[in-house]
């Protein structure tokens, strides 16, 4: 999706490395989706993906360092939503995260957050450094 989409609601905010602060922002986004008549299934998917992205940024990226911030940009329209999350950590290689659905990883407690983000959103892209993720979801699109 191009960035010139006609967003009807946008917000850019820098939050501390604290999941409670992330959830305030997340609830605002979800309220806006519901206000724009997004279906609950789509709202659930966005909720799950943004929750996982914020936890990744705060805990794994910034290591919950109170001196570091997480930048979150959100855009909503009647038909699409875009969320970008940037942390101040060293980044990671998403390609190196093992597939949790491989037989040998089925009982391993890792990799599911990233997988759920990719499953419930239309697109998930990381920058080369691995400390910035941009996710979009098109309303009503089958995952």
């Amino acid at each position: 999706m191009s960035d010139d989409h006609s967003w009807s609601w946008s917000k850019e905010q820098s939050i501390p490395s604290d999941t409670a602060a992330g959830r305030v922002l997340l609830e605002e986004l979800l309220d806006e989706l519901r206000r724009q008549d997004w279906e609950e299934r789509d709202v659930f998917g966005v909720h799950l993906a943004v929750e996982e992205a914020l936890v990744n940024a705060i805990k794994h990226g910034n290591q919950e360092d109170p001196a570091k911030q997480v930048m979150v940009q959100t855009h909503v329209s009647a038909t699409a939503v875009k969320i970008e999350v940037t942390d101040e950590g060293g980044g990671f290689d998403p390609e190196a995260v093992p597939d949790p659905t491989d037989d040998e990883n089925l009982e391993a407690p890792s990799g599911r957050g990233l997988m759920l983000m990719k499953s419930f959103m239309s697109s998930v892209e990381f920058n080369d450094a691995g400390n910035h993720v941009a996710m979009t979801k098109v309303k009503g699109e089958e995952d």
Partner: protein
Amino acid sequence: MSERRRITVNTVGDVHVVRFNDRKILDTTYIGELGEELFSLLEEPGSHKLLLNFDGVEFLSSGALNKLIFLDRRVKEVSGSLRLTNLRPELNEVFMITRLHELFQIFEDEVEALADLNSDD
């Protein structure tokens, strides 16, 4: 047993039937407490049959899924049994996507799960 904050437990026969006190299971601290309370059920003498009823639970993070995987491991270590029930469709989809429906035994409701647990005897 100290007071439980995250779960409510009823005993049906020799099965611990667990319900969750919160709609969203996502916060790390919460998940830690939840894990301690669930694991403590396996430390008590007697039955190690657990039925987790997710009625009313709207949301599970990957951290919560990971805690369930650890619980499943512990249940197997003590030769116990674990069943999950009443997952709303969105959560059921999460289990399907992650293939965790192959690791856990998931049932529509408590009646089905209790019948299955009792058939283990």
